[in-house]
């Protein structure tokens, strides 16, 4: 197993764990945590491809910095939404927030 494949494997398993958390858990905060895990797995892929890639430029390296900034913004807005939902419904269970079902 080459080093690149090892990192891709770890990243794939992390992404699958995050995805599993998103689709199985009902608590909105845990769903956000799963999304963060998936973003981290993508960052690991970026860095692995930068390290073992063909061209020797720093694009993958810089894009991970941008990705981290976007993930921070996403989690701030997401957690504010969770707090707002909790204030309205007194729950963070995403199966009970069904007002938009129509």
């Amino acid at each position: 197993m080459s080093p690149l494949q090892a990192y891709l494997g770890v990243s794939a398993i992390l992404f699958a764990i995050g995805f599993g958390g998103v689709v199985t858990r009902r608590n909105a905060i845990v769903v956000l945590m799963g999304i963060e895990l998936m973003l981290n797995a993508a960052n690991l892929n970026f860095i692995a491809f930068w390290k073992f890639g063909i061209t020797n430029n720093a694009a993958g390296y810089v894009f991970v910095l941008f990705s981290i900034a976007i993930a921070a913004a996403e989690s701030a807005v997401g957690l504010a939404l969770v707090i707002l939902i909790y204030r309205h419904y007194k729950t963070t269970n995403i199966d009970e927030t069904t007002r938009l079902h129509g």
Partner: protein
Amino acid sequence: MPASFYILALFTIMSAFCAMSLRNLVHCALCLALAFLGIAGLFLYLNAGFVAFAQILVYVGAVAILIVFAILLTRNAEKNEAKATSSLFFSIPLTVAIAAILLNAGFSTSLRSSATAATAPSVRELGTLLMTSYVVPLEIIGVLLTVALLGAIVLALPERPEAT
């Protein structure tokens, strides 16, 4: 690969799994912080020191604390959480399928060897890159962060009564 890589990878995967499967939400958040730390260690293995420390600062420092705050602010929501998971009938096979597809794609990559091991840019080079080649994304990220943080503040403000 050295044995320490496997130990670190196993640690990261186990803490990520605990973060997604434990019942107590505070334990979930702590395991998530451990998983973020493990990923920062993997970044260090890949000679990406600046990214690793940015990861520790942003994820372990800020995002994990933000999640803990959100959990504590919505504390008594988990009392009646007798059934914490949705139906596992479709989601477990879906997750396994995604893991299989990604693992297959990763292991069948044609980039076999590290022919040109990239050297990490120094902080000075990184600053030059951010101010020249990547200045447009940098500015957009700045605007996005401002808008997102203002939006988060506006969302979390206490609501006025209905008299508008």
